């Protein structure tokens, strides 16, 4: 009976550990512009999955890097690099040789210059 309890407790601990890792496995790295209010895809961030193979001197699913054409000529205001459990697992199993991530970003709005004082109309 004691062995059975231990077995059950062991399973529960593993389940909790996996649950914690799964639920909190979204590593994220964020860079903000000092004025971070930007726009994205219909209000949400633009999102792109990217896979790096063999690191800096290797291959990437985006070649030498992704050009954020969504921003047209506006600067980026926020970049988030996220990795979920599956992406983390792939990184671990390949010893870092294959690192898939999800990148979310926003672009600065086209800035309407402040209208001049006086009778603008």
């Amino acid at each position, binding site marked *: 009976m004691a062995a059975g309890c231990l077995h059950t407790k062991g399973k529960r601990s593993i389940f909790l550990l996996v649950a*914690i890792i799964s639920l909190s496995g979204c590593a994220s790295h964020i860079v903000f512009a000092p004025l*971070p*209010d930007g726009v994205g895809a219909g209000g949400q961030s633009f999102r792109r999955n990217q896979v790096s193979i063999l690191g800096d001197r290797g291959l990437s699913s985006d070649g030498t890097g992704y050009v954020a054409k969504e921003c047209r000529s506006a600067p980026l205001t926020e970049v988030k690099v996220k990795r979920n459990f599956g992406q983390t697992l792939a990184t671990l199993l390949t010893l870092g040789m294959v690192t898939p991530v999800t990148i979310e970003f926003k672009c600065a709005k*086209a800035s*309407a210059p402040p209208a001049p004082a006086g009778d603008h109309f």
Partner: protein
Amino acid sequence: MPSPEDALLRFEGPRQWTNFHGTVRTDIAGQWVVENGSASSTMAGMRETAARIQRLIRYAVESGVRLRAMGSRWSFSEVAVVKNGWTLQTDRLNFDFTVGPGSIDPAFAGEREGLRLVQAGCSIAELNRKIESSARPRSLRTSGASNGQTIGGSLGTGIHGSAIDRAGFEGEVLGLQLLTAHSNLWIEHPNFPTLSGDFAARLGATLVRDATLFSAGLVSLGALGVVHAALVQTAPRYLLRSFQRQMSVESVIEAMKRLDFTGVALPKPNQRPYFFQMVVDPAHPNTGYVTVRYQEPCPQDYVTDVALRSGYEAGNDLPGVFSAVLDVVPPLRQAVVSLLLQNRLAPFENKLNTPAETYSYTSSRPGTAGGSIAVPAARLDEALELARQAFVSHANAPAAYACRFTQPSPACLGFTRFDPTCVIDIDGLASTSIIELMEGIRTRFDAAGMPYAQHWGKLHGLTAARVAASHGDRLADWHAARNRLLPTAAERQVFSTDLLQDIGLA
């Protein structure tokens, strides 16, 4: 009718829509994204964009598809979206204009300086930056705790802030442009004519001075058409001297009920606060984390600086992590909330900033939940006792609450309707228990006959009965306005949602 899609009005197909805080996920039939034709603010550009939006509205009517205009997706609740409908993303519509003397009605009785016409997609952050950095700097007299909402979104559900002698943000609006399938209206209150007769024509709009339409449009729930622009009044730029300290609830409760802080041991006892807020950890209900701000003149050469100094200012995903952890380890919940409160509400003295610097950026916080209930400030003690009972019954709910104050809203469906109003904000980490807690509070209020109204844009327990109890004396005006602005059933259906229908507003 052919699709109105063009280079400045793009359609993106079916998808799952998510709000900023990650509390609502809904399948939509598609989203429309509208832009202005130029970066420079022009009235011709305003007319062009308005016409473009109206073509979309007519297309939605003909197609029998519901349409929701949205800005930053700031609302916690589902009020902003419609299942299987279309969304119209307006956050790129950020024209703004100063108003010159030639455009002001001779009968205008307010302050002529600092009137600002703002397009709906301009965020509070953008507006703050522009008006506080202009050659004759101005400030908003009130806004919410953070600056991410758009002007259109702010007028969708109402934002209240806690400037104790001011109504919510909608109280700062003197006129608004409302678009429907066949009407383009500039609406003002007849008792407060603001812009001149030919101004509306320059917007391509018809001037209407009507108390019922104006009052309804100030908090429109997206149910009256698309708000395209608003005229906002501002004050000469000022500073807020802020203090935060722990005080006993007992020492401030009577003052909060009357909004009279005479004799209370506040940092500047001889000056009336401009802003007052108390946050309470339910685990320690006798202690309040009090934030008080005093208004001061701002030197002309002061340079407003709203730039972030650290990523932590913008928030981070820590509450989301805790939320995930706490779902696994419930007994830790309240302890973590207490620690978070002590960390974020540590005492400080004499922080001197402009409003734009004070009410700054908030990053997306997955895993947070928020609800707000407005009660008469004079009955705050009774309301807090009922809330305390609910907290005791839901001791594991990871939440804290805040008391904030405003003058009554001029909007027909403004939830801050009491004179004056205390808004009890319940905020915490998303979990089943906090939802149950919020409902526990509302149920106790119902049973006790406590008058209250719920924030449209936060987590709620809205029902037709509760809406009638909160706003019953104004529902006739609301429907009258809606029927005048949207005269056909097809048009009213376009601006309806299941929620609005369920609660008797559509």
